[in-house]
């Protein structure tokens, strides 16, 4: 008799334990849905893709525009590279009146999918000369994806650069990879010393 009672009590306790666990299960099922529904959007804070040009002197030290003033624009004609080098309503102004001793570098956007970007480089020197140069940047374009919550963009690999020689002496590709990293100096730009 005593043994039977003991078995019944153990069975009751086990059922009670089971019921508690089921209750806990439903509670945690609810929690699991809550966890699943939690989401965060982790898009890069820095999400512009620019090319950086650093002004360098022939001896390798940093150059500056100082009293010269620089304008940069790119011709655009329905997204195609244009050979019209006059700044007009269709063009996009990328740098407006950059000057001063702290002007040692500048960053400009790079097109998403054009095979070659045309950059017009206009320099007004301290002696009042207007010097106009054209820079042609050839590149490979790779689509870039972070998440469905972040805007798609393009990264690039610079393959070649050409230029005219009015104010610019030469341009060297320092790092061909163009991505979200704004600290990368992609080009070293050597201006003529006697401009």
């Amino acid at each position: 008799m005593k043994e039977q009672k003991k078995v019944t009590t153990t069975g009751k306790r086990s059922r009670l334990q089971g019921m508690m666990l089921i209750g806990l299960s439903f509670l945690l099922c609810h929690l699991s849905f809550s966890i699943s529904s939690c989401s965060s959007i982790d898009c890069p804070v820095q999400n512009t893709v620019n090319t950086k040009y650093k002004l360098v002197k022939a001896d390798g030290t940093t150059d500056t525009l100082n009293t010269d003033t620089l304008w940069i624009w790119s011709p655009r004609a329905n997204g195609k590279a244009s050979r019209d080098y006059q700044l007009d309503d269709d063009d996009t102004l990328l740098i407006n009146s950059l000057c001063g001793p702290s002007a040692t570098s500048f960053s400009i956007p790079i097109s998403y999918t054009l095979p070659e970007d045309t950059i017009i480089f206009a320099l007004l020197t301290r002696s009042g000369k207007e010097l106009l140069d054209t820079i042609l940047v050839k590149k490979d374009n790779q689509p870039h994806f972070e998440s469905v919550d972040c805007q798609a963009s393009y990264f690039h690999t610079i393959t070649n650069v050409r230029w005219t020689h009015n104010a610019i002496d030469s341009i060297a590709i320092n790092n061909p990879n163009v991505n979200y990293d704004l600290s990368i100096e992609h080009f070293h730009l050597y201006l003529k010393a006697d401009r």
Partner: protein
Amino acid sequence: MIYPSSISTFISRLTVSLLLLIAALAVQAQPKMFRLEKDSIPLFRGFALSFDLVGPAQLMLGDYGSYEGALRINLHDQWFPIFELGLGRANHEKDEVTKLTYKTTAPYFRLGMDWNIMKKKHGPNRLYAGFRYAFTSYKVDIIRENLPDPVWQNLTGFSVEGMPCSQHWLEAVLGLDAKIIGPLHLGWSVRYKRRLAHKDGDIGQTWYVPGFGISDKDNLAATFNVIIDI
């Protein structure tokens, strides 16, 4: 104001702390835990089949989720080697803001072991701690049509289809199952997932990894299982 990411981080930390506590207790009780209890119960106690309900619910309510089943061997009500097999799916069509489409459907598997950490091993209810090794190899479609160049103002766009990706990861599991009636059990598990190695294709990173969830270096997930002893 509490943001969803803060809640998620809080829950992640809480779970990791609990798992570490259980691991510490398990290490303390190590000789007892790994020792086969001396009783008349045989070593092989049968198999259990289980199906997760959270993954299909996620698929019904959202853009991604999975169908998942598991086969578990019961060794003396103490050790439970387990094999989990699932099919993960994401179908995010033309996001409202970014207009991106992301699609993938691929199988994944997990292999691991659970330990029953209840004092009375042979009772009808169990509390588990365990681990899993998991792997998936999957292909993704990422499409963005008519993407305007903000400076040059021309329309661009890309369509990457069938980009091959893969991922290996580990999971720490804390779970519970309760006997309902006969061979039927209900159970849940909370899992902390840690990425070991991954291949994300050529255009950045992936978004949803089958079996792992939203791509990150770690992740927290939960399952709610219907378990049948066979």
